[in-house]
């Protein structure tokens, strides 16, 4: 009887510890993309079907396979995100004729506020709505804005955790635009 009781207590304690460990581990940011890029590898870009911002229906990064995609996580409450929107629009216009585009991922935002900035900066590129932030979690996102460049085979070739600038785009995009699917 005593043996069985001690087993039950041990099992209950192990379950509790396991639950706690799972909770802690699940909150930790995923660094697998950064690790892969640091070692010169390209990893498959996570995809998810999400609602489109300001448009009916849903969209996914997977819809753009065969194209170079500049995936930009942004939010209207994030000042640096707003500051880089005009540059991203200029980039989109410059690369859209070369089978490439900028794709926004609007992160945990009030859609009317986000649409306000879309209109203000006359953004022509589409944005997905990552309303609960799970899509960004797959990219190990910690601070915004964050930008990932996805090659024509759907793999992450570059990432920028923080605002992008013209120099980074000029250095990153041309070699990827020259690659074939």
């Amino acid at each position, binding site marked *: 009887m005593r043996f069985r009781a001690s087993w039950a207590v041990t099992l209950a304690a192990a379950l509790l510890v396991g639950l706690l460990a799972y909770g802690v581990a699940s909150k930790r940011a995923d660094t697998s993309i950064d690790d892969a890029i640091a070692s010169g590898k390209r990893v498959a870009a996570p995809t998810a079907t999400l609602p489109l911002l300001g448009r009916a229906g849903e969209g996914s990064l997977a819809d753009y396979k065969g194209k170079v995609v500049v995936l930009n996580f942004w939010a209207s409450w994030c000042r640096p995100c707003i500051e880089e929107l005009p540059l991203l629009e200029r980039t989109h216009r410059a690369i859209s004729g070369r089978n490439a585009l900028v794709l926004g991922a609007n992160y945990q935002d009030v859609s009317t506020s986000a649409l306000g900035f879309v209109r203000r900066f006359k953004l022509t590129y589409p944005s997905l709505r990552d*309303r609960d932030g799970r899509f960004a979690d797959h990219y190990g996102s910690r601070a915004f804005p964050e930008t990932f460049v996805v090659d024509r085979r759907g793999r992450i070739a570059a990432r920028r955790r923080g605002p992008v600038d013209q120099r980074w785009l000029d250095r990153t995009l041309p070699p990827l635009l020259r690659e074939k699917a």
Partner: protein
Amino acid sequence: MKALALIVLVLAAGGPASLPDVEDEVMCVQCKTALNVSTSAVADQERAFIRRQIALGKDKRQVKAALVDEFGPGVLALPEEKGFNLAAYLVPIALALIALAGLIVAARRWRRRPSVAATAPGPLADDDARRLDAELAAYDRR
């Protein structure tokens, strides 16, 4: 009867929501703290969203539904009762039941333990028996 039904309906629907009433039951989605203690830009935006919903005449339940529609279920301070979130509700209940079961087992064992008074004394050693006899004889002589 109709008036009573109307009152019940009004009570069930709930009155118009207020910001303090809602913001202590929802989270700041980015800072992961309760909205009523959050001061970030995201929190301010969420509060503005709630005010707009209240201005539209929505009650608390409707405002919370609008928040979930905008930010997903993670905006609610109490998680939905499904999937892994069930642990938030089940673990405390399970712990309480385990503690109760432990108390019952301990109480039963304590009740079954034989009392000291009921224990039959063992036979005296020869030396002790002789000493006892001598003591009793001395007592009788007094």
